[in-house]
């Protein structure tokens, strides 16, 4: 008797799987990334989209959220670029160098051309076509390669950037990568940014992701950071996607020795979003701060999933995630710290705190520690609650009306995650996002 196993695929899975063979030979790959694309495609064929019975996706059922796979965005028209630029608001006042991507494609006309010495930026499409040697650094973090959102990006990535900061270079101005989606109908994008910060160099990298209209876009972006020994990296990411977007994003960071790395993700946008961080300590005496500030309302869903891998001794990681939930929105925090057997003297602390402003909101916290070394300091905590009535009363007794008192407390709550941002203009841009979101509540 023959039993034939038939896999039932959703429309989105079918579309993604059918799309790849047709594009395989036309997508630029420069030789180096071809096997990566094929492996990512194999993963999609074998596993399909992850759903709630897959532990890492239990709170964010991607198969249910991605009912259809939106077509890959074409190169934007001049009109789409103009519309996108008029809609790009994030960090508009900050003194930064800017690169613009519209519908996932580099827009040279809307980007700075004079780069400071020591900074090399090559659009990814160009780097892929020419087989840029740094592309060999892509996919350095193993657990990410097994991840569906990352795999979709790898299979279809077509533009983005390869950024190199030469050894010893200290860049004075932040580099701002702004991504704007402005297509009239839903599109998907797959941008990849590879950042290599060489020995002793420092970089402040700012990303903003904005959606110009209400189409149900499906942006999927990946930023991969390779920090060589002694590098200092400050990274800020803003998700201000459009209100119907399904936004997937992944940050990978591989830290050499004596690296100082800070990353902050601020989320206010998208109908549903998932931001993933894969951080690996590969050299000793490095320090990392990974923070998040999420503000969601209505029926929004925002997931932050973090994997911190202490693979070597003497490193320190701090994670602080703040979530504010209004309306019927849902927040998810999954954080895992792994300390490998030889990673003695690891110091890791992870905290997720959420404030629920309404009866209908929900927060799912899942912090995990896996410790295989015996001489480490690790801690995690998770809280979820309403605003403190006693504090509200104190502020109101001084004359602040309830909305203002709530705003002040929420600013303070979120501010703790944001205050790590050293660059004043960038920090002020984020504070504007927070105050804007809070002002819209009332």
């Amino acid at each position: 008797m023959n039993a034939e196993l038939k896999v039932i695929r959703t429309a989105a899975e079918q579309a993604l799987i059918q799309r790849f063979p047709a594009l395989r030979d036309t997508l630029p790959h420069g030789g180096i990334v071809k096997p990566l694309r094929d492996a990512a495609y194999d993963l999609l064929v074998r596993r399909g989209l992850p759903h709630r019975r897959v532990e890492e996706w239990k709170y964010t059922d991607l198969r249910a959220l991605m009912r259809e796979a939106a077509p890959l965005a074409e190169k934007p028209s001049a009109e789409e670029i103009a519309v996108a630029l008029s809609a790009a608001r994030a960090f508009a006042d900050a003194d930064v160098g800017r690169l613009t991507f519209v519908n996932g494609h580099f827009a040279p006309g809307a980007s700075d051309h004079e780069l400071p010495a020591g900074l090399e930026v090559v659009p990814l499409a160009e780097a892929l076509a020419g087989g840029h040697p740094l592309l060999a650094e892509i996919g350095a973090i193993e657990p990410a390669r097994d991840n569906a959102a990352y795999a979709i990006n790898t299979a279809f990535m077509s533009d983005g950037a390869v950024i190199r900061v030469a050894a010893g270079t200290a860049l004075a101005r932040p580099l701002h990568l702004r991504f704007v989606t402005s297509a009239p109908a839903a599109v998907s994008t797959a941008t990849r940014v590879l950042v290599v910060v060489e020995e002793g160099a420092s970089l402040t990298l700012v990303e903003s992701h904005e959606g110009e209209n209400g189409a149900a876009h499906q942006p999927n972006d990946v930023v991969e950071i390779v920090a060589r020994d002694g590098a200092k990296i400050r990274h800020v990411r803003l998700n201000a996607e459009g209100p119907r977007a399904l936004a997937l994003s992944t940050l990978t960071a591989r830290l050499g020795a004596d690296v100082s790395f800070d990353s902050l993700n601020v989320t206010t946008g998208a109908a549903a979003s998932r931001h993933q961080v894969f951080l690996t300590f590969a050299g000793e005496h490095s320090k990392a701060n990974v923070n998040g500030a999420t503000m969601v309302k209505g029926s929004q869903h925002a997931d932050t999933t973090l994997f911190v891998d202490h693979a070597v001794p003497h490193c320190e990681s701090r994670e602080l995630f703040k979530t504010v939930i209004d309306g019927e929105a849902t927040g998810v925090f999954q954080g895992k710290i792994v300390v490998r057997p030889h990673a003695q003297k690891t110091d890791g602390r992870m905290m997720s705190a959420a404030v629920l402003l309404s009866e209908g909101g929900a927060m799912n916290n899942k912090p995990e520690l896996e410790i295989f070394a015996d001489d480490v300091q690790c801690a995690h905590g998770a809280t979820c609650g309403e605003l403190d009535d006693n504090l509200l009363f104190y502020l109101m007794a001084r004359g602040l009306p309830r909305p203002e008192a709530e705003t002040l407390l929420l600013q303070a709550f979120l501010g703790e995650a944001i205050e790590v941002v050293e660059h004043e203009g960038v920090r002020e841009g984020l504070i504007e996002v927070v105050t804007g979101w809070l002002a819209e509540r009332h």
Partner: protein
Amino acid sequence: MLEIKNLTVRVDDKTILDGLNLTVKTGEVAAIMGPNGSGKSTLSYVVAGRPDYEVLDGEVLLNGENILAMEPDERAAAGVFLAFQYPLEIPGVGTMTFLKAALNAQLKAKGMAELTTPEFIKRVNAAAASLEIPKDMLKRALNVGFSGGEKKRMEILQMALLQPSFCILDETDSGLDIDALRIVADGVNALRSPERSFLVITHYQRLLNHIVPDSVHVMANGRIVRSGGPELALELEANGYAEYSLQAAE
């Protein structure tokens, strides 16, 4: 003028204030003394508008208007100020940010223009100097890491800035050493005026040496059981509260 009539208040099925009557005239400094658990702090919270109290009966009239239905911020705008027994620490909220927000909210509620930043800073600095509050304290988060005495001075600073017409001091003397007590009392005395009334709640007569009241009221078991002049405080200091607790229980 504040008039409290037959105020009856319950918390978690327990009656804390039991038909309390009290009148404080405009410009008067009234002291309330009484043993622990007599309902003194509850009275201060109910007048300021803290939500978790159930008012079963009675009125609190401020200049003839019943304030019990008002939100705490509306009462503040109407002139009520409570100096907390335990001022709260608010991490992440800068002291100056808070002071400015409070002052501007009250000005706005009164239909007045908000202060400019230089004018605001000038006023804060003047008030802080008279209360011997160092400038670095103003740069910190509100009350975070402040000593007990610093927190109480910060309460009086807020009172000086907001210029309320009815001030309640809830055991402002608790946790203060002699020097801090003098500074706080001087701050309060500087605010005494024919237009401003005070309700000074305390266990001990000591504070009333510094802030000399016009009237003294003894509170026990949720009501005022005796009223008199400043000499009553001295009598209580000598004899204690035992007789009032008994009297009220009978």
